[in-house]
């Protein structure tokens, strides 16, 4: 297997609780190229968040390995920054301080104080949140919090940006705004991004490739769909675009025909 920029090789994950083993992931292999935007989609409980946590290094794989830029990954680190589902901003710090915490840690000795300040402000500008830099997380809306969460992750200058259902807790309109913001950032900076989602439209709109996972237990990659839509993409134009609709249909068919979610199948 030729190694990609980021590659997951034969990842197995088994959780053990009270002596009963449950197999979550089985033989998950995936390669992601530099600058690529990949979504991982699947029904809830299929282990897609587990995949992301293994890439982030927050969970250890039972067997298999993750390589990033030729190096083996086995612990969390800022080169794989995570945008957490519920933003995870520290409530006692202001927006500025939250990002500065990351910047001062990651760029200690590499940037001086003034450069660090500029870098914080630059990332706040990227997500259009510079106006709220002195606010606390409790004083801003959910969408704004997630913008700050994205800015914090970007400020670490990661090799891969990991987005764990970043817009799941937001209302539809705010979600659309943030999707546009992420698309714009991806176009400007060319980051490699991996996003976990359960929203079909979101996956098709944002991704170069969509990784569809089968249902657990022992979930694996069912299909990988290329999304051959030119960028920049516009959600209104795409609404009647034939390729877009085809991609959407393919994902829907996978999720609702071939791998229907059976609830409480224990």
């Amino acid at each position, binding site marked *: 297997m030729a190694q990609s920029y980021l590659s997951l090789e034969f990842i197995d994950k088994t959780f053990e609780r009270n002596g009963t083993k449950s197999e979550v992931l089985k033989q998950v292999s995936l390669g992601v190229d530099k600058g690529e935007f990949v979504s991982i989609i699947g029904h809830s409980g299929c282990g897609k968040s587990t995949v992301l946590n293994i890439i982030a290094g927050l969970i250890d794989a039972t067997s298999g390995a993750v390589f990033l830029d030729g190096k083996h990954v086995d*612990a969390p680190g800022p080169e794989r920054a995570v945008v*957490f589902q*519920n933003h995870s901003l*520290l409530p*006692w710090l202001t927006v500025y301080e939250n990002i500065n915490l990351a910047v001062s840690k990651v760029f200690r000795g590499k940037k001086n104080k003034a450069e660090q300040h500029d870098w914080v402000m630059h990332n706040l500008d990227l997500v259009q949140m510079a106006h709220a830099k002195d606010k606390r997380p409790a004083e801003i809306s959910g969408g704004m919090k997630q913008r700050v969460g994205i800015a914090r992750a970007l400020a*670490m200058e990661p090799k891969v940006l990991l987005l764990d259902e970043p817009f799941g807790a937001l209302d539809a309109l705010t979600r659309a705004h943030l999707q546009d913001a992420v698309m714009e950032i991806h176009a400007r900076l060319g980051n490699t991004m991996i996003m976990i989602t359960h929203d079909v439209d979101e996956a098709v709109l944002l991704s170069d490739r969509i990784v569809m996972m089968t249902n657990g237990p022992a979930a694996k990659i069912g299909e990988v769909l290329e999304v051959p839509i030119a960028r920049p993409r516009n959600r209104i134009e795409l609404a009647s675009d034939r390729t877009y609709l085809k991609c959407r249909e393919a994902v829907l068919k996978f999720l609702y025909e071939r791998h229907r979610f059976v609830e409480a199948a224990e």
Partner: protein
Amino acid sequence: MSVTQLNIKESKQVSPKAQVVAFSPAKPRRSIVLMATEKARRLTATVLPPLLTLALLVLAWEILCSSPTSSLPAPSRVLSESWELIIHPFHVGQGVDQGMFWHIAASLQRVALGYALAAIAGIALGVLVGQSQWAMRGLDPIFQILRTVPPLAWLPLSLAAFRDGNPSAIFVIFITAIWPVIINTAVGIRNIPQDYQNVAKVLRLNGFEYFGKIMLPAAAPYIFTGLRIGIGLSWLAIVAAEMLIGGVGIGFFIWDAWNSSLISDIIVALVYVGVVGFLLDRLIAFVGRLVTRGTANA
């Protein structure tokens, strides 16, 4: 076509609304007056009910204790009998013959010392118990048993150890206040959300950075809950401890007044004890809000 026409109509309807904005200079003036009356209304709403209740209670007390054979003095009699005590809080006499201010100050000094020691040791032990599974298994049962020992039960033991009243009283304060601080700190540390720990992991914070930047601020609301319970218990314990150790202090003052049958003085002292206890509680809550920057719901 019909849609665009609709748009035009709407925009026409919108235009008069835009003109309303022109009136806005008048708004601030009106709102300042409104805000002032609103503030005054809120103030009366918070201050009036307790004042009314207090007046009613004092009235009831006056009526109940008005008979000459009553064993307890009525408020009017308290005022007349203890007038000297009330108007001379800074009186300096000999021995324990001091104004109320000096008694309270002596008690506060003991509480400050014992409480400060309890806060430092309590937070340190709480962090240990909250962080380490083994420390928790080893120490928690001991803490759970020791914390039920009443404060005064420690006094004879500490008198035996220190052979002096003052350090014994301080030790009683310490041992009374430390348990809620330990337990709440430990709970706070154990309840640090996984999200914050993940953030720390992704940033590769070292142990020292994690302690200062995540652990203490995240646990601060819990720690201050413990500190607030602790200050209340300290103030409860000091009165009892001072009754036994003697010397200048509000506890001994009350005991001395009882021995001299100065019931009115006791009532004056109780008012002081209550007010000071309330202020101490508010002080810790205020410091808590300051330190946690409003994330503590104190």
